[in-house]
């Protein structure tokens, strides 16, 4: 009962916060609401016994990426931004698409069968600590995808620097 209540709270609050984020007129307020949203996501991770991911969610998303967002948005001319039209004219098409995808997920979710239980049960993770468990899996079983992901990020960093250098 209690876990369901927790999940219900997180689910409802996260959906309503997402709506709040996209409907604010002031972009700075949007970013600050997004900060609250990120904390709820971290709470959901904690709820799943994923303490390492919860901490990294806060450090990276709330602590670094969102501060950069705020940094850029603070430079904008907010007076102009606030009076601008919130949604473009084609928003009904977007809503229709979103609803159809939601229906697709809704109907397919009942057909999903649970996979076989792996070795990482809650007890196993508690005994080993989550950080160690995730590190082992990431650096042995999924080493190749992990390295590819880091390479893609490196390319993005180099690309950003190249773009910034061209102007100066």
């Amino acid at each position: 009962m209690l876990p369901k209540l927790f999940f219900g709270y997180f689910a409802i609050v996260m959906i309503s916060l997402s709506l709040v984020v996209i409907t604010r007129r002031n972009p700075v307020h949007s970013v600050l609401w997004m900060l609250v949203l990120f904390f709820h996501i971290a709470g959901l991770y904690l709820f799943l016994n994923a303490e390492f991911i919860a901490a990294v969610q806060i450090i990276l998303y709330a602590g670094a990426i969102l501060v950069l967002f705020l940094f850029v948005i603070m430079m904008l001319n907010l007076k102009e931004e606030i009076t601008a039209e919130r949604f473009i004219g084609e928003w009904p098409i977007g809503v229709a698409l979103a609803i159809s995808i939601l229906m697709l997920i809704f109907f397919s979710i009942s057909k999903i069968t649970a996979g076989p239980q792996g070795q990482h049960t809650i007890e196993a993770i508690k005994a080993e600590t989550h950080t160690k468990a995730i590190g082992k899996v990431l650096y042995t079983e999924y080493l190749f995808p992990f390295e590819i992901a880091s390479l893609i990020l490196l390319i993005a960093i180099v690309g950003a620097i190249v773009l910034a250098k061209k102007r100066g």
Partner: protein
Amino acid sequence: MNILDSALSGTYGYLFNIAIIFVKIAVVVGVTMLHVTYATYFERKVIGHMQIRLGPMRVGPHGILQPIADMLKLFFKEDIIPSEADKPVFKIAPVIPIFATLSSLAVVPFFEGFVIADINIGLLYLFAMSSLAAYGVVMAGWASNSKYSFLGGLRSSAQVISYEVAMGLSLVGVMLMAGSLNLSDIVKAQQQYWHGMFLIPQFLAYFVFMVAAFAETNRTPFDLPEAESELVAGYFVEYSGIRFAWYYAAEYVGMIIMSSIAVLCFWGGWTIPPVIADSIPALKVVPGIVWFLGKVYFHIFLYYWVRATVPRYRYDQLMALGWKVLIPLALANIVVTSIVKYMS
């Protein structure tokens, strides 16, 4: 003892444990806030004597009651909100840094077995909270609707993001050597060496960590977000009364937290080097909190010492130091530590 046992195992055991946690929180927060009030006095005295002045002398003998007088003044001062400010953000902003720094205290083990929340990711939690504190500064800078605050806020956000990387990387060496992120385990891991501290094998990491800690807490020589000669007071220039006091208190709690991390990760926390403890057995009787506080006080003194000695950095120098010196040094330290750990 029987009564205590039955209370712990009975139906009220759960509530009893929660009550104990609340008492612990009250003690830790109370003692820390007392430290904060007297840290301001200590700072003014230390810097005063370093500059051949006396510092505060008027209130009480040697000005000992000065922080109390300051506190009373701040409590009763008029709270002014600029008319063009973004009011909700302006009001929330000062709460965030003090909230973030005080909640960091939850994972700090002050002595053997005394920690409010003994979690496995203690060190990561501290990082998360210190990055959250930056929001208070950025939000204040933007919401005040003043160019001085705004520039202070911008400077601070760029500075905190840059130095957080160096700080995180510098502690990776400690994590590698201890094999844990739990602060109590890190302290215990240091006891297996004769010197009892990671300071000696991780001297490079300690240097990087301390420089980054100065930048993270916006202290001299990296106090550009509140450079008084250019920005009046930086991001909190529009704040007064108790809201201003929150920022001030958060800065000092932040210093205490950074000093505590340095002590726990590099100076062996509440323990003393086994080589000293073995040669002078009488020292084993001294409670751990004494050593812990002594080491923390030394680090806080270091903050004041540096403030009285070093001039402020220029902004481009600050960025160059962070990205071109500290981060490469921390990375090199990680590589060397990993190789040594792998070989042994």
